[in-house]
């Protein structure tokens, strides 16, 4: 009977860790997508659609950030968890704060660049950077949807900037609170992965020369996405929504 209970506790702990990791993966993905979108700001690919994509991605990031923070804070405050579990949660905490660091900077930059390059002026002076395509698929990836829906008014570029300012203040405040409430020494955390670990992955990531859309291995078949989140195949020929990719 005791063994059974012990097992239940262990499983519950494992599940908690797994949930945490999944949420962090989601936040990580949204952060990466947001970075892509901000890079496009101010260029000739900038558009009202891009501004809306930025806004939606940002909101998603904030939702995930809040969820991650609540979960991790609760776990780190829990005195009953084991030492190994605690050091794992501290590692996850550091991953979380790093993600927030990137998001914080990118939000501030998107405010600055968004203000410097307004869209509703008689002559736009967007920089001709050579980018010509849209970022709709990147945003869709961040939102975990198949296609983006554009619902905003035509003045979203100016309307959103005010909201953005307020949201940046919120993020800054949240990060300050986090630092004060959670006592984690980041330097005490050790990475699980060694230098060059990214090369040992079973996934082959795209090479630019000879890029063939029908290539055999798919970037989406990656272990960490087993937590039940929607994701879709990066092979451009088909968008397969689900847990597995047939082209893998």
């Amino acid at each position, binding site marked *: 009977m005791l063994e059974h209970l012990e097992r239940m506790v262990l499983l519950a702990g494992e599940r908690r860790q797994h949930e945490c990791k999944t949420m962090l993966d989601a936040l990580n*993905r949204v952060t990466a997508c947001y*970075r892509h979108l901000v890079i496009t*700001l101010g260029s000739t690919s900038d558009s009202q659609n891009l501004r809306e994509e930025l806004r939606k991605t940002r909101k998603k990031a904030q939702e995930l950030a809040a969820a991650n923070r609540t979960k991790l804070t609760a776990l780190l405050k829990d005195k009953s968890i084991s030492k190994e579990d605690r050091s794992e949660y501290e590692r996850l905490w550091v991953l979380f704060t790093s993600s927030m660091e990137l998001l914080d900077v990118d939000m501030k930059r998107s405010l600055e660049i968004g203000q410097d390059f307004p869209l509703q002026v008689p002559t736009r002076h967007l920089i*001709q950077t050579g980018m010509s*395509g849209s970022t709709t698929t*990147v945003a869709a990836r961040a939102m975990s949807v198949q296609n983006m829906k554009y619902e905003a008014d035509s003045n979203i570029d100016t309307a959103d900037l005010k909201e953005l300012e307020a949201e940046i203040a919120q993020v800054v405040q949240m990060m300050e609170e986090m630092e004060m409430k959670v006592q984690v020494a980041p330097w005490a*955390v050790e*990475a699980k992965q060694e230098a060059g670990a990214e090369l040992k992955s079973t996934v082959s990531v795209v090479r630019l020369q000879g890029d063939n859309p029908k290539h055999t291995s798919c970037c989406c078949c990656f272990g960490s996405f087993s937590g039940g989140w929607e994701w879709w195949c990066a092979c451009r020929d088909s968008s397969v929504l689900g847990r597995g990719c047939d082209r893998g």
Partner: protein
Amino acid sequence: VFTFILKFQHDHKVSLPMEQVIVAMQDPDLGIKMKNQRLLITVIPHAMTGNDIVEWLMKKYSIMEEEALHVGDLLVRHGYIYPLKEPRNLVLRPDESPYRFQTPYFWSSQQWPASELDYAIYLTKKNIRKQGQLIDYEKENYNLLHKRINHTWDFVVMQAKEQLRASKQRRKADRIVLECQEQAYWLINRPPPGAFDIREHGPERRNRLTSRVQLVRLHSFIIHQKKIHDRTFIKYSEQYFSHDPMMHGCPPSNPWITDDITHWALNTNTVSTPTKLRVERWSFRFMELLSDPLGRLKFMEYLEKEFSAENLCFWEACEDIRHGENSRIPQKVQEVYKQFLAPGASKWVNVDSKTMEKTLEGLRRPNRFVMDDAQMHIYFLMKKDSYPRYLKSDLYKNLLVKAIAPQETKRSVFPFMRRHRHSSPNPALVAQALEEDGKAKRLGSPRITSPATSP
């Protein structure tokens, strides 16, 4: 010169014309005419030749080819334009070599310095794409970073992979552009060893593009990249020129060079007669006077004669709250209120009703900034009223007359003659010896030498 710039940047906003030039180049009618770049089957728009850039600059600003080349070169070296062939060669060639504009996110800025985290992510991405074949200095940097930010390395790998996945969502042409942009950015911000490093030579940067500064002649901004058509800056630097230890020396001599500490001795906070330069500086700006403790002391003497010393006392008390220990803040705030703000206070200061209301509100939850508004009000009061009168007063004029102006000591005839360097006594030992002396005097016994004090 660097001291000026740092001080100036602290006080004013410096505009950066390079970004203005880049924006002007985008003009649909008067900007540079773009061409397409063909890479096998991919066509990427928005390319221009080195020639295009030089000719445009010459025409737009009516300058000679040499100047235009110099300006264009600056634009490339600071990362606003990057070369498409030979990306590591960050120069402007006045020929058919192709160039492209960098996206605003990757414009180098002091406000957004390139972070280690980002660099680590970039190198990891590159590592994946090149399957472990990083260039020497990049490999070194990669290993260094892996040690230095090891605690967040897992995030670096996670984020690198996700950024690569996100870029696969773009069409091929855009992916190529993105890679080139990133590479150009990091060539500027983490240059290979031996290459030109803008972190050491870059001009002072500002944060926003929206300045209305008009470029009349590009010539002035090339040569005087750091101090341009802003009259305030030139006035400022002229004013401080003779006060800058690097430009004008520190009379009588620079202690670090001659081992003569007279310069420091003459400029302490408790000296009875200040130096001429120091008294002069008090007349430059009010803040200059206030930040010098001796200046404050002398100003206080004047205010006492005018029966308005409570203003300065209040200001000093507020500074003490702002910069003092957290634990004593509530106590200090209460004291300040009793002494300066309460009705019938002994040193009552004249603060306007709106500010007083706000301050009283804040007193309910005292923090180190609760007195800021009131302090600012009194600061401006002193600045507009007492300060100008002080500078015209006999007290101040006397200080100037009586001030010391030490002669510069003659430098040694042979500058390359070696100075005899001798180490000064270890301050810890000196302190200990003094303590021992003190003890011995109190106990009336002969001095006891401990092992630590013996040479």
